């Protein structure tokens, strides 16, 4: 529609609007709103619909046009947000784009934009909180422990970035409450209410927690056994509950070993500590110890290290750190640090994780030594 035609249409619609003010009819109001939408005047359409629905609240036609208007407005907002992101990319515009997707009910794209924003702009409290919320909602549908753990991780990261933020704290409290972590939920809620006493949803959640506590005190064993079941399932899946302290790393728990003295002895110690059948240590200058006399193994370790370098460079993954190849009858572990290498062949029964920790420890001492 050209400029003149649009102007004429606007004048016609203004007249129609004035006439409708004196003699309102639902069908004509709906027509007017549609015409405004056609002109791209979403604000005027919303105004007309609001006035029409206040006079004819039961009109299904007006309700339908209102839905259409909301979707048109959403699409307009989405287009504008996309333009903003393309023109001057920043985290705020990515959040605006994500919100536009959410308002249209496109939840997949909403989460995708948030994930991309996180990847592109790094840790951001709002982005992390929104992603945490996505994962929490998914957990409420799936009841999968993995979703709960992921939601917890994201919300804790959000609180690390913005410790005073209310939303992630409330969501974290809700998550703990849903998985039965009543005490942890209460801690979060008390903290939130101390910062924002007027937070209604937090107050409601605290009331629910109080009721749960009263029920438990009254001896409702079903509830306790349900909690125990949930906790047991989460422990089975992840080894610990989301609110429990992460177990100390095995290398941190191990007693401090003497400074690196003799590489051959270190290779032997590494073989004992990891249960490896073959161990090879190579320092940053290329000198090797351990299974060094096994030329084929030496070549394999060096070839795989070179391969890791190439792959990391090709895919811009940064500095290669480790490679684990798990086979049916054993595993190969290659740890890399500042040019030094540790290669281990493990039997099926040995844990690759434990061996990798031991190898990292040895490498650390080798490069320091």
């Amino acid at each position, binding site marked *: 529609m050209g400029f003149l035609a649009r102007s004429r249409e606007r004048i016609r619609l203004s007249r129609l609007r004035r006439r409708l003010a004196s003699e309102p009819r639902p069908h004509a109001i709906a027509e007017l709103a549609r015409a405004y939408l056609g002109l791209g005047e979403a604000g005027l359409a919303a105004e007309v619909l609001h006035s029409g629905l206040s006079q004819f609240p039961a009109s299904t036609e007006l309700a339908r046009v209102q839905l259409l208007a909301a979707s048109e407005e959403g699409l307009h907002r989405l287009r504008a947000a996309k333009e903003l992101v393309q023109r001057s990319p920043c985290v705020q515009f990515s959040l605006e784009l994500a919100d536009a997707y959410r308002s249209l009910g496109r939840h997949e794209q909403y989460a995708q934009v948030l994930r991309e924003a996180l990847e592109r702009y790094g840790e951001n409290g709002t982005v992390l909180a929104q992603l945490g919320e996505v994962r929490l909602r998914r957990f409420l549908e799936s009841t999968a422990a993995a979703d709960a753990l992921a939601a917890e991780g*994201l919300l804790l990261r959000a609180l690390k970035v913005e410790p005073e933020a209310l939303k992630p704290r409330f969501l974290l409290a809700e998550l703990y409450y849903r998985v039965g972590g009543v005490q942890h939920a209460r801690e979060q809620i008390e903290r939130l209410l101390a910062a924002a006493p007027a937070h209604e949803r937090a107050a409601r959640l605290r009331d629910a927690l109080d009721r749960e506590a009263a029920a438990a005190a009254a001896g409702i064993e079903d509830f306790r056994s349900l909690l125990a079941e949930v906790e047991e399932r989460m422990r089975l899946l992840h080894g610990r509950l989301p609110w429990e302290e992460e177990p100390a790393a095995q290398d941190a728990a191990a007693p401090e070993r003497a400074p690196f003295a003799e590489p051959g002895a270190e290779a032997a110690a590494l073989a004992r500590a990891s249960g490896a059948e073959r161990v090879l240590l190579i320092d940053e200058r290329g000198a090797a110890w351990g299974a060094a006399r096994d030329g084929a193994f030496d070549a394999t370790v060096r070839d795989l290290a070179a391969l890791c370098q190439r792959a990391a460079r090709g895919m811009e993954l940064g500095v290669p750190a480790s490679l684990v190849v798990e086979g*049916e009858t054993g595993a*190969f572990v290659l740890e890399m640090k500042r040019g030094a290498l540790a290669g281990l062949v493990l039997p099926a029964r040995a844990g690759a994780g434990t061996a990798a920790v031991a190898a990292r420890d040895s490498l650390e001492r080798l490069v320091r030594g």
Partner: protein
Amino acid sequence: MREAVRELKERVGVRGALVMSSDGMVVAADLCDGLAPDSVAALASAAAGQARRAARDLGLGRTRRIIFTASFGRLVFVPVDELMLVIVTEPSLDLELTLLEIAGPARRIRELSRLNAPV
């Protein structure tokens, strides 16, 4: 297959996933910006091939999984019959959780690959 790959990418911390043939042909891919499927498949195919040969030479039997970790990312290779599933994740993501997350979609991809295999 594409849907299963997309589903994998929806998991938290997963930057992308692709399914490729043993010679590096991309069957399905959904990777984040900056990672071109063909380049990743070419590198991944070479890396997985060499790692599998090494595993065979070292007497480890058939390869079940390959995990490569670098400072900015982690690659998890899971052989799916004749195909290879490659998942690119955040390096800091808990490995056990990642493996748990990808188990379901990997199973689905295996079923799909069997359905599509020539009789």
